[in-house]
């Protein structure tokens, strides 16, 4: 790290504070010990279903695959009482196909944009991608931050780019992906969260990961971001939403993340306007556990339609 980058980080940490890494790890370890059973479990599972951004982000995506994904998002499973998911999350080229299938339902269309997952394209190209996705009808845009600029301490460049994407979004919700696995430390995750939040609108999201790197959402980085959201809310009164993505595959994990939300931000954040899961396989495990709660029997995974395997 160059001296100027060092100084920039020092100034920022002085302003927003740093993270007690050991404390965070200890705190999140406790979330995994809560015993959630019966009625509260079913409540949590169904709530988690409503928070899923059902995702397919693969080179091999086709309009047909997106169509079946949309169907799955609208009506996740036949025969059990489950709500629709919050949104489907697709590549920009698939937005118009997805839009057609979810029309008239509560399911929103989210699109990754800004040269996802690396973000390594000229700003002009990235903004054009956002505008095109919005024009095709994307209700939500998932952007990646410029990690290179962030790590070299060029914070105003990072914020400037986010600001321009906010503008390009128009009325669409924005989710800012920090890509926590490339930020190295909890301090950096907190710093990037603040930089993003300072230029976001109320109820825009900060998001952990693209799901395209080896390390994804963990209870630890989720907690750091939730606490950043809390501190920012107390300071400014602006509520920012949160989306962990990647690596959340089981219902049990999802419940632990919800416990973190409940105990850090409270009930105001326990809805799909303020909290989402970016996932593809999670939905089927949630359905499997809901059906298990209903019938009392453990279910086979192939009883549930597989709409997406990526992420």
């Amino acid at each position, binding site marked *: 790290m160059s001296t100027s980058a060092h100084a920039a980080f020092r100034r920022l940490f002085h302003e927003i504070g740093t993270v007690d890494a050991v404390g965070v790890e200890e705190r999140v370890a406790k979330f995994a010990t809560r015993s959630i059973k019966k009625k509260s479990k079913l409540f949590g599972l169904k709530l988690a279903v409503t928070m899923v951004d059902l995702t397919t982000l693969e080179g091999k995506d086709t309009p047909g695959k997106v169509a079946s994904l949309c169907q799955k998002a609208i009506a996740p499973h036949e025969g059990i009482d489950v709500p629709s998911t919050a949104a489907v999350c697709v590549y920009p080229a698939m937005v118009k196909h997805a839009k057609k299938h979810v029309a008239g339902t509560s399911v929103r269309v989210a699109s990754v944009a800004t040269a996802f997952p690396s973000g390594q394209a000229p700003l002009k190209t990235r903004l054009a991608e956002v505008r095109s996705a919005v024009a095709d009808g994307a209700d939500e845009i998932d952007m990646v931050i410029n990690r290179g600029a962030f790590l070299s301490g060029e914070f105003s460049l990072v914020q400037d780019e986010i600001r321009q994407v906010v503008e390009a979004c128009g009325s669409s919700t924005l989710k800012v992906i920090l890509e926590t696995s490339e930020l190295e430390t909890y301090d950096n995750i907190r710093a990037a969260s603040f930089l993003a939040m300072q230029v976001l609108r109320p109820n825009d999201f900060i998001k952990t990961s693209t799901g395209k790197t080896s390390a994804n959402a963990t209870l630890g980085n989720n907690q750091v971001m939730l606490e950043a959201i809390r501190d920012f809310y107390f300071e400014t009164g602006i509520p920012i939403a949160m989306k962990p993505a990647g690596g959340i595959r089981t219902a049990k994990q999802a419940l632990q993340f919800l416990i973190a939300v409940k105990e850090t931000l409270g009930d105001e954040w326990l809805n799909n306007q303020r909290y989402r899961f970016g996932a593809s396989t999670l939905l089927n495990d949630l359905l499997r556990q809901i059906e298990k709660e209903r019938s*009392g*029997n*453990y*279910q*086979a995974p192939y009883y549930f339609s597989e709409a997406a395997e990526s992420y």
Partner: protein
Amino acid sequence: MNPRLPITKTPKCYVGGAFIRSESGRVTPLHDASGAFFANIPQCTRKDLRNAVEAAAKSGSGWAKRSAYNRGQIIYRLAEMIEARSAEMIEALQVGGQPSARAKTEVAATVDRLIHYAGWTDKYEQLLGNVNPVSSPHFNFTVTEPTGIVGVLAPEDAPLLALVSLIAPAITSGNTVVALASTSQPYPSIALGEMLATSDLPGGVVNLLTGFRAELLPTFATHAHIRAISGVANADERKAIKLAAADSVKRVHLLKTEETHDWFADSAQGLYEIRDLVEFKTTWHPIGA
């Protein structure tokens, strides 16, 4: 110098290629034939069973995709591992009170049984599959596929030989197994797990649980991911298992506890044990005039 402190082993169950305690933390004290305390055996719960099924599911497709010849090599290797550590296995059987001569015979028979099925892996298909005569321009043939995850319920007698005699035909055709060991003599299954771990059998293909049979039977029967039940059960258990298994349309092959079974006999092994745990797929392939 002080006398050396005794180092006793903590018996653990072999699940998903790892040695686990029960998630419940519960154990049952096991006493040897003389009534002295021997060790605490994990008392597995339905959640342990669920985890074992997940482990079996994870390894299942890979195991079924291995070539038949390779499955044979691996089962043979398992037999080699038990043969090389037969003294340890004989001791494990003696914990349950078996006289040394009988324990020795049982270990030898167990090794031979595995060798028997190792030979079958690339041969049963020739006997169970078929080209069927049909009166239309079709090439019509039947091949077998493994059933999937098999729940094995071991009887109380012959705690090693019977357990292996139930597991071996299942894995021969590419199934995976979640087995519940004998309740009164669980220790040989613990030793077997340690030998499975050093064989080339991929983790998760065979999972061994110890615990109370009555606690686990309902979950064995109702878990939809378990595709077949193979083992020994009494009249009440058979009825309960068949009723509960009907929901998920499981195959149920249960021997009767009230009848005696000679696990040492040649009749306790063979092609029909393999056939019970495969699915038949018939294909109609059009041919030119």
